[in-house]
């Protein structure tokens, strides 16, 4: 992988920097961000490169804090959806033919369904909050992942070593846990950066609409929403808040591309 090596290192560097920098940033701001109302909507300066927001908070600092929220949430979503996807794909594979048919039709139905509308419907019942975010992210990413994982499981199951294992007396559960699940896990890990990026984007979108993160919890989406409210008076707000999100998603794309390159697939 000579080509794109530099971009890949930049991407990895960015993620690493973010992982180290944002906790430090939050740690040094010691608890709540400082509200310096006289400074509200101050444009960027050398010391405060992102300027101040409507409540007189340093935008760089609150962006870092919001990033911690958004990223933590996205990471949790990735882990949960990988576990759920592997569980349900194994369930479908192991199910008797008639049940399998039902499962697959349900899966197709979920795949065809626009996830944002489902999320909005859910928000209409539960109101904005973490549960809405969880639900809508899972409904958005899970069906696709399950289908992918299920397809891989079918591929694995026709391999010779599975047949060997069965003929040696391996039970269904043994074959699944011993041979199939590790394969599925490695596929999921390949897809993880992509999922992470998807979760970040979806969180930003929903929180932007006011349906995501609860009020008082800054995430990248809710900061973007604030930026939109002060678009004319303080464009630096909208610009600055989006930049870390964009770089993160770009980096994740680059990393996922390099993971999926033939070198890794063997």
């Amino acid at each position, binding site marked *: 992988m000579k080509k794109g090596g530099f971009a890949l290192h930049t991407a990895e560097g960015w993620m690493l920097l973010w992982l180290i920098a944002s906790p430090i940033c939050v740690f040094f701001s010691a608890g709540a961000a400082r509200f310096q109302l006289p400074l509200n909507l101050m444009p960027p300066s050398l010391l405060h490169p992102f300027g101040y927001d409507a409540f007189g908070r340093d935008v760089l600092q609150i962006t870092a804090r919001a990033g911690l929220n958004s990223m933590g949430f996205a990471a949790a979503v990735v882990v949960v959806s990988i576990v759920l996807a592997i569980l349900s794909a194994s369930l479908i594979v192991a199910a008797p033919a008639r049940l399998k048919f039902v499962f697959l039709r349900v899966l197709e139905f979920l795949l*065809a369904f*626009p996830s944002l*509308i489902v999320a909005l*419907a859910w928000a*209409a019942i*539960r109101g904005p909050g973490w549960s809405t975010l969880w639900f809508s992210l899972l409904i958005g990413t899970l069906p696709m992942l399950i289908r992918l994982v299920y397809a891989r499981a079918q591929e694995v199951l026709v391999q010779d070593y599975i047949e060997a294992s069965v003929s040696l007396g391996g039970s269904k559960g043994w074959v699944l846990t011993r041979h199939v699940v590790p394969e599925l896990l490695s596929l999921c890990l390949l897809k993880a950066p992509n999922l992470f990026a998807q979760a970040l984007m979806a969180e930003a*979108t929903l929180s*932007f609409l006011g349906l995501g993160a609860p009020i008082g919890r800054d995430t990248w989406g809710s900061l973007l929403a604030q930026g939109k409210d002060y678009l004319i008076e303080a*464009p630096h707000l909208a610009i600055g808040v989006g930049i870390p999100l964009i770089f993160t998603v770009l980096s994740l794309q680059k990393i996922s591309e390099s993971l999926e390159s033939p070198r890794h697939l063997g």
Partner: protein
Amino acid sequence: MPQVKRLFSTVLIVLSIFLGSRALIRALPGDPVDTLIAESGTSIPRAVLLKELGLDRPFFESALQDFRSALHGDLGVSLLNKQPVLPLLKARFLNTLALTTTAFFFALILSMSLGLRAAQKPGGLADTLCSVFGAVSASLPTPWLGPMLIILFAFWIPVFQLGDSLVLPALTLALSISGFWARLIRERVRESLRHGSAQAARARGLSEFKVVLKYGLAPAAGLIAAYFGSQFGALLSGAFVTEVIFNWKGMGNLLVNSVLRRDYPMIEAAVFVGSVCAISGTIAGDWIRSSIERREEYRL
């Protein structure tokens, strides 16, 4: 009978969406009407609400009644302004349709011109541009891109008027989807150009443009069309956010506002119409693909 089967499953899906959307209000925690009154602060008396929302009858009975009135064009009455839902929804739907159609054509022009050119010359300038554009457009969140376009083209370089202009929202939407489209077109066209027929056509002296269209794009058209169809749902979801940013009076804006203000009859109707639109996009895409590829099926 694939057609009959498909029709049957479509009807089944639409029916289940209808039932699902009608069941929304019953999923409210506690007593639905009490929750509704508490959260929306509506002045409509409780008994009227019960009857209006069909909560005084068992679910399937009221759903059947709703279905009958829906066939007559009555989708309920809004809790906010006490107007029938359907006329408003129709007007908003047409606005959304105008936005998505414009965006669709923008995206089509953008991705076709970039993707086809990139497919012609692997490793060329257009190819690199296509990759970069694909990566960037996939990582620009709509809630960021929209405001940026407003700052750029409505304030710093005042080209477009805000408010009634269709161009900026359509451009936002088009930019966020066309990156992936361009890459898809590039891959598919390049794949079909790899067959010998393209080489033979070049040897016969056909112009490069014609070769790309006839031997590159045409064989891949089915897959691309199916993908575009299935993208319609995504386009609709993207349109929701874009509509909120640009305050475009479309269905997404309506749905988001109804959710925030708890106008359940409106939510139910909008969820139903929106999902049916998105799903029919997917089905239309499938249908286009199968009708284009039928020739090849017969050959086998």
